[in-house]
């Protein structure tokens, strides 16, 4: 099934127990498992949060918000129960890392959830997997049951006098549910429609109670921070970007795979050394650095460190860790169209700029790609996308708009090449042998 790929530059932190049978709770315990939760109990809420802040861990879902800071926003006193919600609804195109964590080290997610709960005195956590990952639900349910048997979950966990329960479930197919507020709606048994913020989930979240919501990789990292010590963990990455990241290399590379590399690892090196370069000796055209929502970088923009700040400075986002590599044969209009088809399909329809915008963009891109476009379409695509930006309830609208703007801006010539009425001039499928190698 899903396995990690390694390279001499890899630094195993989250993948420390991958491939070592850690789904078995005894083996997990033998590899320092659940020691971090015990440490966290001894430390207490304030010290847990300071340790998290010191680790410089930033949210692995895509936005890169500092995790310790996020946890510190949960009010100490609350009339309503507090919750921890683990976002394992991984569905950003190009991303397949959380799947590995659940499959190879389910207890790290459970232990991270417990520590998050301890930091805000929550008594209940939810682990929400995407519906397509049904086989992982079985792994997670077994792991949760084993943790209950050991007394690590339930009443009086680790003999501490504290209680903590975990429920795990899957979604049923919806990209939008990976957005934190839509995720809460889905967990409450409703359509996954986003909530307006503020209030933020840390104050008013699941069932109206203060809620910590973090990506599965973020949560799975937490026990390792307490295992290694925050200072040691922070040292691995770059400034304000602690630790490692599971990067999912896909597309036109010799050795696609999920690799755990230090934050700030050079993107060019990642593609040419870790990934083995472009198949067939072809040239690189573009890289989508962090999942479909992130603006593509051109071949001469990739000599950058892969951390939130450096990729941000280069005009894109580190996003979800999904690095999609495109060779010179790729038609950027077709790529833009496929990306937009996805967003049009996944838009929940709740707010108009996203619902209408993604659909019109899909239609215009389809016409252009088929050769029926007019010159004005190119500017219209950019105009539509720019007018969606920042005008939607949730980031899905931005996620559709940002890459589209970049495609038009950086590859305008290719869009213009489609205007002669003859259809796509460089459809890679026209030379399947070259493209499929």
């Amino acid at each position, binding site marked *: 099934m*899903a396995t990690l790929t390694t390279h001499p530059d890899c630094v195993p932190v989250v993948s420390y127990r991958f491939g070592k049978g850690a789904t078995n709770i005894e083996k997990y315990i033998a590899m320092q498992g659940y020691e971090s939760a015990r440490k966290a109990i001894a430390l207490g809420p304030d010290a847990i949060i300071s340790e998290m802040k010191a680790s410089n861990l930033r949210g692995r879902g895509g936005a890169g918000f500092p995790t310790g800071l996020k946890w510190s926003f949960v009010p100490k006193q609350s009339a309503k129960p507090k919750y921890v919600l683990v976002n394992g609804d991984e569905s950003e195109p190009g991303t397949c890392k959380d799947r590995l964590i659940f499959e190879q080290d389910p207890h790290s997610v459970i232990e991270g959830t417990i520590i998050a709960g301890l930091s805000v005195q929550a008594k209940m956590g939810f682990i929400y997997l995407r519906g397509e990952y049904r086989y992982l639900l079985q792994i997670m349910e077994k792991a949760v049951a084993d943790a209950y048997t050991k007394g690590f979950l339930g009443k009086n966990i680790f003999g501490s006098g504290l209680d903590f329960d975990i429920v795990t479930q899957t979604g049923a197919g919806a990209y939008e549910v990976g957005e934190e507020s839509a995720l809460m709606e889905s*967990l409450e*048994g409703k359509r996954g429609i986003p909530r307006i913020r503020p209030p933020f989930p840390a104050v008013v979240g699941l069932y109206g109670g203060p809620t910590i919501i973090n990506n599965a990789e973020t949560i799975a990292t937490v026990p390792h921070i307490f295992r290694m010590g925050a200072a040691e963990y922070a040292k691995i990455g770059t400034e304000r970007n602690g630790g490692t990241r599971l990067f999912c290399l896909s597309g036109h590379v010799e050795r696609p795979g999920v690799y755990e590399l230090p934050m700030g690892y050079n993107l060019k090196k990642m593609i040419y050394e870790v990934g083995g370069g472009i198949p067939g000796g072809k040239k690189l055209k573009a890289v989508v650095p962090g999942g479909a929502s992130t603006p593509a970088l051109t071949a001469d923009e990739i000599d950058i460190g892969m951390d939130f700040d450096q990729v941000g400075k280069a005009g894109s986002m580190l996003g979800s860790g999904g690095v999609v590599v495109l060779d010179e044969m790729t038609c950027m209009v077709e790529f833009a169209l496929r990306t937009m088809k996805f967003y049009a399909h996944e838009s929940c329809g709740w707010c108009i700029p996203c619902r209408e915008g993604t659909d019109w963009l899909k239609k215009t891109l389809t016409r252009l790609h088929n050769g029926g476009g007019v010159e004005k379409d190119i500017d219209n695509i950019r105009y539509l996308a720019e007018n969606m930006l920042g005008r939607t309830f949730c980031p899905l609208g931005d996620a559709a708009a940002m890459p589209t703007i970049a495609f038009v801006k950086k590859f305008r010539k290719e869009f213009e090449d489609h205007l002669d009425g003859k259809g796509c001039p460089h459809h890679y499928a026209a030379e399947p042998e070259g493209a499929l190698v």
Partner: protein
Amino acid sequence: MSTQPAQPATIFSPVLAARFDKLVTLYPVKRSALVPMLLYAQDEVGYLSDAAIAEIAARIGITELDVRNVISYYSLLRTKPAGKFHVQVCTNISCMLRGGNEILEHCKKTLGIANKGVTGDGLFSLEEVECIGACSWAPAAQVNYEFHENLTPEAMDKVLEGCRARSSGAKK
């Protein structure tokens, strides 16, 4: 006369009915069990039939309309039967770059059905799907919940043949 309370009538198997009884107690509100219940009901019945929807609505204490409203949001939930083997081919970006569209076309040709079609014998249904989380092992497809990765048309044929063999094996 028995002192045991009468069991409510259920369309589900005793195992699933018991699972549902427990599921609604796990969450702070009953309704949170809705999406998992719909999935498990679909797994057992094959799709979300009127009877399944009615029973789930009653178990949670919401209207059938509420349940249908939720069903229509999620792409994995269906109110019509699919094939015994539901073949879901990903054509999203990472799969597209490595031949996902070709796998989809190959399935259409081999199975003789269009996207969202069901074969006459009810054995296969085909669907083009969005990213399934197998990007580094593209192109990929799922048959029911099973992942098949690093596909080629030949490998896809083997997957489909495997389904046929399993089906005829089960009949004997």
